[in-house]
């Protein structure tokens, strides 16, 4: 394991090289480009698998780190490092594996895009950044990769930048996550200041190993220093993992190509936040206990809980197939956060893993659907695809069941654990989450029926099954969506966290199964019994809920709210300053000028015109001449500047000499 960690850098490096090579390839080299990316990703996957296998034999929460000096100036040295522990290994394996299949899918999805190589370049870079983030043993490197992930998401969301909506979405994603990053960066700075290092683990000197010490220091608002830093870091995670209120970018990110959505929503970007919280878990818990958790933990819990429920409700009211999935992602991320906030590192991380598989499956499936239906995204205009796209249907069904938490699919186990651990902490949160789980089952059922059941509502173009390179990935992923849940118990063991026996296991499990069943049943009742006949028909739910449905459909008007408050306020502030500048400052200046003019008038009128005027004229002339002379310095001629530079040097030397 100590040897393996020295090769961790290869995992992000290979996709990075692939990206670099891509950037030099001509546009026409599509096959070559895809081949390079897939090879690099596959090789990374193999390496990750090796690292994973290397961590398997160890039963303790063992980690190997490898730090090195990046560069040092004076007494400060900046270190970077790589880590290999079970969490990293599992995460890296997931990212590379899911990423690989997303890449495969993308070769099909993007097959007729003219910027194919550019797309794969960005995709590779994205994967590289995410992998770098995963293997980093250093907040600095983590932050660099974190920002790189943000940049790549920006590039990829706006891949079709010629669409105005995509251009807007890319900016939105970038700016929104940037808001979170401010917090994150502040947290890093404070950590660096307080702990003196940014290494996470460094043989007892790492930042996380000093968490206990940090918990003893005083921070802001009466929190301990550890909590303060944790809260700041969590703000970053909120941005990246799309937690309320910074969730608004995620659904808009659907403007990117579907493989990008899959990558963002399953394997990489949103996972980064959850992963980071998991990684910094020691800092979040430091100073608290099971009975009296820290503020940071509470914050994570409640933000997660609220996001889970809030997004789930929105997802119910969406018609765009990808948008519904996007809100579902938001909701699931809320689940993960909630689990972490409840102190359940293992359930949170485990749900992250299982979710990655089935959400990637669902997104790629939706991509297949979109391709199969000739770039149609509105679920109302689909229907009956089961006949036309049987493979996609079955895979999608597996994904849907996994997300809905139906046993024995992967989602059931992980979600069950999430609920269980939440149950320990707060019955209220648990209740809300259970309701969110019910909604999850409901909207997924709704989606299934709208898309696959009934008959084709999309018009003349008959849908068709997609090519093998698109359905193969979802088929592979669906295998994992079925089977991964059984490793839940093992995963806990593998992560090396021994949690005490939890009570209420059977109640929670039973209830969650029941809730899931109820959701599916309700979905069937509303959408399955009588499928939509044509696209213009109103949604059954809309009939029932009326205005509330519109509200859900418009995402609880959050965007509008932001427009009305923050953006408006910013605009107003800008306008205010403009007016202030125009009126007040200019007014003062004008006033001075007018006053001076007036005074001068008086003086001229009153005083001796010749004496004063003569002197004044001379002064003015002097100023004008000086100005003209100095203006000559600003000639645009480099040599002139160089001369002045040189003159300055000579003068400085003379001064020094005389001193």
């Amino acid at each position, binding site marked *: 394991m100590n040897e393996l960690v020295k090769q961790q850098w290869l995992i992000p490096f290979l996709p990075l090289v692939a990206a670099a090579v891509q950037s030099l390839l001509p546009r026409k080299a599509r096959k070559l480009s895809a081949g390079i990316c897939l090879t690099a990703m596959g090789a990374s996957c193999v390496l990750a698998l090796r690292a994973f296998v290397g961590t398997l034999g160890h039963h303790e929460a063992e980690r190997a780190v490898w730090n090195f000096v990046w560069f040092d100036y004076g007494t400060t040295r900046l270190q970077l490092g790589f880590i290999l522990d079970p969490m990293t290994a599992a995460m890296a394996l997931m990212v590379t594996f899911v990423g690989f299949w997303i890449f495969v899918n993308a070769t099909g999805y993007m097959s007729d895009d003219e910027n194919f190589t550019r797309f794969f370049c960005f995709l590779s870079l994205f994967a590289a950044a995410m992998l770098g983030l995963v293997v980093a043993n250093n907040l600095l490197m983590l932050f660099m990769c974190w920002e790189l992930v943000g940049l790549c998401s920006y590039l990829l969301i706006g891949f079709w930048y010629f669409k105005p909506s995509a251009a807007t979405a890319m900016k939105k994603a970038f700016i929104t996550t940037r808001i979170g990053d401010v917090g994150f960066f502040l947290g890093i700075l404070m950590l660096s200041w307080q702990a003196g290092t940014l290494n996470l683990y460094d043989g007892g000197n790492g930042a996380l190993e000093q968490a206990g010490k940090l918990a003893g220091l005083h921070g802001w608002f009466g929190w301990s220093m550890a909590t303060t830093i944790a809260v700041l870091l969590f703000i970053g995670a909120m941005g990246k993992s799309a937690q309320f209120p910074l969730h608004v970018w995620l659904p808009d990110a659907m403007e990117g190509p579907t493989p990008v959505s899959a990558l963002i929503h399953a394997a990489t970007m949103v996972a980064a936040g959850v992963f980071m919280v998991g990684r910094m878990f020691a800092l979040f818990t430091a100073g608290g206990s099971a009975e009296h958790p820290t503020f940071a933990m509470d914050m994570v819990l409640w933000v997660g809980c609220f996001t889970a429920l809030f997004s789930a409700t929105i997802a119910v009211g969406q018609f765009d197939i990808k948008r519904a999935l996007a809100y579902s992602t938001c909701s699931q991320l809320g689940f993960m956060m909630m689990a972490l906030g409840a102190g359940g590192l293992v359930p949170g991380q485990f749900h992250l893993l299982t979710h990655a598989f089935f959400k990637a499956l669902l997104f790629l499936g939706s991509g297949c659907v979109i391709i199969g239906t000739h770039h149609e995204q509105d679920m109302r205009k689909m229907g009956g695809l089961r006949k036309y796209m049987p493979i996609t249907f079955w895979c999608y069904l597996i994904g849907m069941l996994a997300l809905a938490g139906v046993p024995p699919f992967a989602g059931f186990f992980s979600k069950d654990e999430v609920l269980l651990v939440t149950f320990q902490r707060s019955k209220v949160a648990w209740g809300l989450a259970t309701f969110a789980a019910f909604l999850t089952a409901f909207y997924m059922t709704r989606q299934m029926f709208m898309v696959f059941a009934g008959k084709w509502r999309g018009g003349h173009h008959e849908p068709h099954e997609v090519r093998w390179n698109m359905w193969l990935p979802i088929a592979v992923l669906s295998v994992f969506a079925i089977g991964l849940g059984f490793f839940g118990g093992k995963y806990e063991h593998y992560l090396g966290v021994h949690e005490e026996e939890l009570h209420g296991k059977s109640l929670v499990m039973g209830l969650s199964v029941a809730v899931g069943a109820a959701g599916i049943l309700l979905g069937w009742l509303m959408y399955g019994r009588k499928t939509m006949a044509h696209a213009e028909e109103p949604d059954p739910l809309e009939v029932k809920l009326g205005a509330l449905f519109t509200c859900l459909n418009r995402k609880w008007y959050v965007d509008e709210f932001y427009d009305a408050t923050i953006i408006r306020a910013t605009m107003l502030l800008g306008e205010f300053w403009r007016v202030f500048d125009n009126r007040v400052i200019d007014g003062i200046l004008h006033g001075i000028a007018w006053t001076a003019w007036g005074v001068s008038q008086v003086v001229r009128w009153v005083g001796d015109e010749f004496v004063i005027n003569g002197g004044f004229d001379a002064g003015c002339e002097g100023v004008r001449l000086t100005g003209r002379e100095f203006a000559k310095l600003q*000639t*645009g*001629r480099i*040599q002139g500047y160089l*001369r002045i530079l*040189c003159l300055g040097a000579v003068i400085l030397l003379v001064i020094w000499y005389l001193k």
Partner: protein
Amino acid sequence: MSVPLGYYLMLGGVLFCIGLCGALTRKNAIAVLMSIEIMFNAAILNFVVFWYYLHNGALTGQMFALFAIAVAAAESAVGLALVISVYRHYRSVDVDEMKALKG
């Protein structure tokens, strides 16, 4: 070799200033570039001199000189490409005439 360090430093300084003088006075952009090469070389000479006199044992001075030579090569390549490009705009390589910011 019994030349004290000071002479080398003075030599380097004088050479640098000759180059500087050229860079300040020549009108021809290529001549300016050549003058800059002289300045570069004077600096590189100082690297080696300091290595030889002060840091014997470690090769940092030589390494630096090596890298500086490489950078200078790159610099002259780009610089001359710029000169050629500018020449196409103005049909002249007179630096005094290159004062407009747009081509």
